[in-house]
């Protein structure tokens, strides 16, 4: 028996060694399965959308197939389909030099006139024209940040064929969009090298809770994850990858609580919760205590923002408030589990301090709340554009206009943010990143599956069990 066991053990050892050795080398092939919550009606990046969630997922999916002239990563603005650019007339005229050797999904070379036509169709007021291998863009007003604007996915280069077909230069080509599933195939002639996987399949309209369950059951490979799901996935040994903090969760007081007379009350209530504990315990470390609107990596000035000193909060101080001021209602979107969890944590802390707090998640009519917990997603771009976008989201929800126009100086953006925070109508709570859960089949790569500035990086994801 011993003689039998020993060779078996030896064989098993060799098998394990071989398997582990093979597991460290990326493999080609397989279909990567992705689940997302929002619906996806089209992959055309220039198509209008009234639904922010759908627009966000479309930008992400369309990045698989369509590329922009420029791109944004942690090192700032980078060349993509354009290798360089220059301006004349202080931003009134721009010239973008196109990368050579780029092939469309049908194998034909990308031509400058196609790029110009795509830019004209993306709905902008500028005039784009091909000049040899260069794209010239004329604008009516100076656009100092045009290369940053062109990094937005809505300005991706899309070749529209007859019958509504869409072709691009990205790492995957669109195979079909049917019902709740979008299918992509690897673009073998991709100029930055073929992706590892053969295909990507995106199933849309999957609730986040179902996504996590599917990931645990091995029915999918890539899902969106909430910080509160992290312990559950960690117990299963599944990986989570995170972007930089890209979203602000903030307490925004309603107009009747936003008056100057209520400033002291707002300051007292804003001091009643512990951001650090919330970040460490509730968010499992996947969150940064927020004391500014914009995360530091987007603004560059966060340490210079003055934050009001927290008053010494005691039960007697809260007890001294009029009874009506001690009753606080926080409203949270009914479908937003993360905000609900954060609101409950704020409520628990505030109750400790002597407030009486209710968290309201109405689906119909409900009593007027004192504050809402809102989530504001940031666009990774210049500070003025990021702040303008964030303030636009607030304005769209009914709060007064804030913030400087785009192209403002950094000092002006800082001043606008400081003014906003000084009023204590918007109280930052935490900054949270975009989290992606990766399934068992996804092999380890030194390049993350989620980009630091947000969005997937699926060309670098590979599947174990694919072709060696």
């Amino acid at each position, binding site marked *: 028996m011993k003689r039998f066991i020993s060779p078996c053990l030896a064989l098993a050892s060799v098998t394990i060694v071989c398997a582990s050795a093979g597991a460290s080398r990326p493999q080609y092939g397989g279909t990567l399965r992705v689940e997302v919550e929002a619906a996806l009606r089209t992959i055309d990046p220039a198509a209008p959308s009234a639904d922010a969630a759908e627009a966000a997922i479309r930008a992400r999916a369309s990045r698989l197939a369509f590329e922009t002239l420029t791109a944004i990563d942690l090192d700032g603005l980078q060349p993509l389909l354009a290798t360089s650019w220059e301006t004349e007339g202080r931003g009134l005229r721009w010239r973008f030099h196109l990368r050579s050797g780029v092939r469309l999904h049908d194998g034909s070379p990308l031509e400058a006139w196609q790029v110009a036509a795509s830019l004209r169709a993306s709905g902008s007021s500028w005039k784009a024209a091909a000049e040899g291998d260069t794209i010239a863009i004329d604008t009516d007003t100076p656009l100092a940040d045009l290369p940053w604007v062109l990094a937005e996915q809505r300005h991706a280069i899309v070749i529209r064929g007859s019958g509504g077909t869409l072709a691009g230069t990205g790492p995957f080509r669109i195979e079909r969009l049917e019902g709740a599933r979008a299918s992509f195939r690897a673009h073998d002639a991709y100029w930055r090298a073929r992706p590892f996987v053969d295909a990507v399949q995106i199933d849309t309209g999957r609730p986040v809770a179902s996504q996590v369950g599917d990931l645990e059951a091995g029915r999918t490979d890539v899902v969106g994850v909430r910080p509160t799901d992290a312990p559950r996935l960690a117990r299963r040994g599944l990986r989570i990858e995170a972007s930089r903090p890209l979203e602000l969760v903030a307490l925004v007081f309603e107009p009747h609580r936003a008056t100057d007379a209520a400033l002291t009350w707002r300051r007292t209530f804003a001091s009643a919760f512990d951001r650090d504990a919330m970040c460490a315990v509730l968010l499992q470390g996947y969150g940064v205590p927020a004391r500014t609107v914009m995360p530091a990596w987007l603004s560059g000035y*966060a340490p*210079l923002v003055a934050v009001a000193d927290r008053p010494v909060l005691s039960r007697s101080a809260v007890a001294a408030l009029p009874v009506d001021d001690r009753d606080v209602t926080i409203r949270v979107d009914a479908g937003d589990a993360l905000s609900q969890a954060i609101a409950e944590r704020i409520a628990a802390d505030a109750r400790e301090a002597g407030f009486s707090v209710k968290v309201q998640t109405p689906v119909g009519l409900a009593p007027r709340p004192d504050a809402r917990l809102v989530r504001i997603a940031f666009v990774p771009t210049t500070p003025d554009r990021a702040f303008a976008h964030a303030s636009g989201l607030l304005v769209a929800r009914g709060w007064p206009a804030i913030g400087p126009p785009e192209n403002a100086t950094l000092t002006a953006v*800082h001043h606008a943010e400081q003014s906003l925070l000084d009023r204590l109508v918007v109280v930052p709570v935490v900054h949270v990143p975009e989290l992606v859960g990766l399934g068992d089949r996804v092999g380890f790569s030194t390049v993350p599956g989620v980009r630091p500035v947000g969005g997937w990086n699926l060309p670098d994801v590979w599947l174990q069990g694919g072709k060696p």
Partner: protein
Amino acid sequence: MGRDERDARLKGSRSFCGASGSHFFRSQRSARLSAERLLKFAIVGFRAREWWTRFAASALILVAAVSTTLAQSRAAFVDLAPDLASKIAAELAPATPVRLSFPNDEERVRAEVARLLASRGVRVVETGDEAIVTGSCQANLRERVCGASIVSGASRRVVMITSARGASADTARESVVALEMWPVYTQRAPMLDVAVAGAGLLVLSRDSVSLVGEAAAGNLTGRVTAAQPIRTSRVWPRDTRGLLRTVASGFEAFLPGVICRGTVTPFALACADEGEPWPLGLDNGGLTPSRNTFATPEGLTFYEAAPLDAGRWLVVGERGVLTFLDAQRRVTARSESADHAIGFPDACGADGPYVVTATRGSPAGGDTLRLARAVEGRLIPLPSAVALPGVLTSLWRTSGAREATAIVHDFTAGRYEAFHITLSCAR
């Protein structure tokens, strides 16, 4: 490397919960740079020949590599200091004393701003209720930003300087400095110092100078081809110190109260009982045999001297207190204590001066070499450290070269090992 990168990445991805978002940024960068370190030190390990020494050296260096994370100062922002100082000065009344603070990892920017403010007549003080200037430097996606809030009484103003990211920022990127160390020779008998002489290696011990053939080619246990006794009537101290130096005519050996001069070809040595100054760079009257210390002409007692920039020095003083001297050898500051210190004033361009100090680890363990940068009378520790395989008995900077020699007594293995130490600089 893959596993280290993976560990570092996993660590980075879980490092969100901190005082600011920049914490995560640093963790990710640290992970990248740790991995870069591994490559560098893997190369270093192959300079030795014997497998066990090679292995030990690699292991030692791996310790340094893994611990090398980027907490180094943000030299990339120093170029913004002049404009920032101008803006700060413009906000202050003449001769206003200010308290200036920056985050710890922006010490170089703080020092530069302080220097520039002083040159504009602004008095920078450590304590007091004067104007409080709090500075910070960070980058957003478009630009590098240095700013300061100036609080004076009830008023608060913010000034900011920006510079576009790009090529200039890349060239200004902070250097990554790390200790690099490789073994050059080992023997069972005690040795005081070694020096490369042509293709051979000179080895100084208490009673002789030996010439080891082929040692310079990396043969750690090269054969002793010749030896000359040190003839002296002196009785050596129990913890004898010795220094070897090659000169145009041959070599010199400095021992307590004894100077030996010799030639390699033919191998000869002549010693004399002389209390000459030792070639430390810092003026001294030679080693005091009964105390094992040096003294400056002003009478300051020290064990070792590390050159800094602009004629300044850091010396290991009495009871091991690290003492900063200006170009006139006046004490300007005192810092923590260490057993040994050497300086690299001109290594890694303008980012220095760098200092390597050695401190005793646990009684059973070996000593540790630590890298620091000397700034304004303080040592700013850098995360590069090397755990030695035993007790450091000697640490001398090689004259005219950007390296130093360390002699380590490995009690466990029962041998003395000589190492060469340099700083590696990368951007």
